[in-house]
């Protein structure tokens, strides 16, 4: 039961990451690219949590927290760069 659901969720998030990659390649503006990259980071967090469920370990959570923080900071940095032209004022 739970294995089937895990496989389904893995497939869903893998498909979602492929769609994000497609959007990064074909986006017409830099704002859309930043948005797609941010979505990709969130999907990779979901995939790491799913791996934690399927392996039954807690070892992925530190990696998940670090990816979440780095993703947020990098998205904010990209947005600052689009807005101002520099990041640290």
């Amino acid at each position, binding site marked *: *039961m*739970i294995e*089937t*659901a*895990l496989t*389904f*969720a*893995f*497939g*869903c*998030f893998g*498909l*979602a*990451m492929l*769609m*994000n990659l*497609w*959007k990064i390649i074909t986006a017409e*503006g830099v*704002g*859309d690219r*930043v*948005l*797609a990259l*941010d*979505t990709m980071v*969130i*999907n990779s*967090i*979901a995939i790491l*949590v*799913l791996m*934690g*469920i399927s392996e*039954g370990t*807690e070892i992925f*959570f530190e990696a*998940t*927290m670090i990816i*979440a*923080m780095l993703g*947020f900071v990098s*998205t*904010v940095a990209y*947005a*600052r760069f*689009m*807005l101002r032209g520099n990041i640290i004022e």
Partner: protein
Amino acid sequence: MAQIADYLTAVFLVIGGFFGVVGSFGLIKLGDSMSRLHAPTKATTLGVGGVLIASLLHSYAIEGYLSVHELMITLFLFLTAPITALFIAKAHIHRHREDYDLPETGDDTCWAVLEKEEVVAEPLPDSLEDMKPTE
């Protein structure tokens, strides 16, 4: 009991995966830039929330311990997703909109994103004043 937890975990996993796909599909499907902002920031956050609830249930009911890491990740994601959306929307206004197609702000201040920055040179301290080149 374990059977019920098993089913609930599976249901939350399926919900999470579905909403993850909906978010990314909206990202490539929706028409203009500002409607595209809705899909990833709302549907994908909901999808990740479903997966985190499933992980919480799984670790509590099947592995046998209560883990609070998922709550931390949920809190962090739910705090940062709106901030990200706000920043991307601000960058979009800054790059693609002019004053005339934005609505009135309602008072005498203008849109903060479109404010022109004035660069004010700071006066030099006294000790450096002598070293200033003279014309």
